[in-house]
């Protein structure tokens, strides 16, 4: 037993951003929490039989069904009269959330279950070997959007999951990053003060998939935020209530720190496209210190 609800000794890679985020999330949620997990890196490195890193009840079923499994857990707890004292988390990686699991997640939101869904966003299918997901950023080199003479990497933008969540009318939608551990803790605690479905998307850098030294994960998380490429935002009842203000750094600082963007570093036009994504985020959410959001909440 450690002092944490997610114990050390699991088999995540050195510098794994997800494992750090998981520990912060579950410690913030507390011991009266039940976790339902989509298939991904997480149950592989934390539940290899006969060992488990989890000090709270944990259920892993399939790749895309954690929201539905958690919905069933909630129904059972309501039936047993125990729901009010227990926090429920459903969680998945970016592919399990934005791609294969989006339908079950939409169902969970629409039905209004009192569950916090956490997307651990490391921006590709890392567990299967760094394939592109719907949350892989523009121009990232992955094994299914490889760089080549005709390719600069992923040609698509990240799927706007927070906006999709907001469109469901759920009461709490936020993003966070392991670059800011206290932000994760605060948002998880806040989420559990709000009844209904909640969505928290946490940026969890992956040294293996992004190709950077494993001691730089927190720096990588911060750089994504400081360049405007990963806005840290928080919505309550559809209203933008907080953003992490930044003094924007040029996107090159983030891009050149990782191997996955190497193919565009010598191409100013491609870098401009990435800068435009950051500039759009900065304007849309009013990320620049002392500025206001350009557009009202969705």
């Amino acid at each position: 037993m450690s002092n944490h609800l997610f114990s050390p000794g699991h088999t995540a890679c050195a510098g794994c951003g997800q494992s750090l985020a998981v520990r912060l999330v579950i410690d913030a949620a507390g011991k009266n929490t039940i976790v339902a997990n989509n298939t991904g890196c997480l149950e592989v490195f934390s539940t290899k039989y006969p060992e488990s890193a989890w000090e709270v009840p944990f259920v892993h079923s399939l790749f895309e069904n954690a929201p539905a499994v958690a919905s069933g857990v909630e129904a059972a707890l309501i039936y047993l009269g125990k729901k009010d004292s227990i926090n429920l988390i459903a969680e998945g990686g970016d592919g399990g959330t934005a791609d294969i699991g989006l339908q079950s997640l939409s169902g969970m939101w629409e039905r209004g279950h009192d569950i916090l869904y956490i997307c651990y966003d490391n921006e590709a299918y890392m567990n299967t070997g760094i394939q592109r997901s719907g949350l892989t950023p523009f121009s990232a080199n992955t094994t299914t959007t490889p760089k080549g003479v005709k390719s600069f990497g992923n040609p698509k933008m990240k799927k706007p999951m927070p906006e999709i969540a907001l469109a469901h009318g759920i009461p709490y939608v936020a993003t966070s990053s392991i670059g800011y551990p206290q932000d994760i803790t605060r948002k998880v605690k806040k989420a559990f003060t709000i009844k209904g479905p909640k969505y928290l998307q946490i940026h969890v850098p992956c040294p293996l998939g992004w190709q950077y030294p494993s001691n730089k994960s927190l720096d990588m998380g911060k750089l994504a935020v400081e360049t405007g490429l990963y806005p840290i935002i928080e919505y309550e009842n559809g209203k933008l209530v907080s953003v992490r203000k930044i003094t924007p750094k040029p996107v090159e600082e983030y891009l050149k720190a990782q191997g996955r963007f190497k193919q565009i570093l010598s191409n100013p036009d491609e870098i401009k496209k990435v800068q435009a994504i950051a500039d759009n985020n900065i304007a849309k959410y009013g990320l620049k210190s002392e500025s206001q959001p350009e557009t009202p909440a969705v």
Partner: protein
Amino acid sequence: MKELLEGSMIVAKAIQLCRPGVISAYPITPQTHIVEELAQMVADGHLNAQFVNVESEHSAASVVLGSEATGVRSYTATSSQGLLLMAEVIFNIAGMRLPIVLTDANRAISAPINIWNDQQDTISLRDAGWIQLYAEDNQEALDFHILAYRLAEDKNIMLPVMVCMDGFILTHGIETVDMPTQEQVDKYLPPYKALYKLDVDNPLTLGPLADPDYYTEARYAIHETQKKALALIPKLTAEFAKVFGRNYNGLIEGYQIKDAERVIVAMGSVCGTIKDVIDELRKKGKKVGLLKITSFRPFPAQEIYEALKNVPKVAVLDRSVSLGSFAPAASEIKACFFGKTKKPKVISSFVAGLGGRDITKDSIKEIYSALTQKEKTCEFIDLKPELLKENYE
């Protein structure tokens, strides 16, 4: 008490009597009447359960996975494409040893899309680890659901049970059944106490990763437990008879089989038609009989062997196909006799009733007539050659 009801209402009442705490379902013909009735019972306060409407069968199965893992008796129902969409979760539920009960209103699989009865859906999931019971009529459908929960939740079993009933023929057929009282069901089926569950006071990890050092044993344990179920089912049906006054073997049922020279082996509602034909043919002095298989999983190979070893000619009637191979039940029936000295001289295989084509009394008579010395392999009955664009001879 005798009640005249539609099959789906009968099943809904059976489930109500079993007191599930969570029900989740997604609509698909011909399962809908069952879950509509259960939803109404919950709406009227006649059933204290959480009814979770979901966006797909995949989620319906996942919801009951979650609720059962939390220690609450759970129920779902589906059919055809719905069962196939659940397939991934179906395997998962058995692997996690969650004693869920599911009703499948047996229906054909697309393409071509077809909403009518055959048994391709559940047969296609025979290897999932679930126990599969096939009902002949709505009294069996009713009783098998009560038996199913008792069997699934037995601490030596802990496997899910699928009650398979022919879509429309049973689900929409109106029959008189003997409806048990709540007291009877409560006596037979005690409240569910999970061996393992999601509980904040005793945190467990469910659904872990098992590497090659552990996976085989998890699967072996399910396989061996299926065999235990084979031994337990007759005990539970004997106990069932004491409480409810109806006696099932639970694995197989022979009809006019003792002196029979020709026997059809079948599953589901067609057995009723076959019994009628037998009664007619017996009056004419024909020694014909039926072996009904109730439990397809676990497969009662020894019981089938004992029942058929002295029968000269056997016909296996499949209401599904294993496209490109032998018919599903036929191949397993034949396997019961491989290497045995006592065995039928002929085991012929027939396929009929796909996509809701009626298996009439004439169809059955044709099968008895076709049961000659020449063994038939996967012979389609009531085929319309004029509809085929190619000659397959």
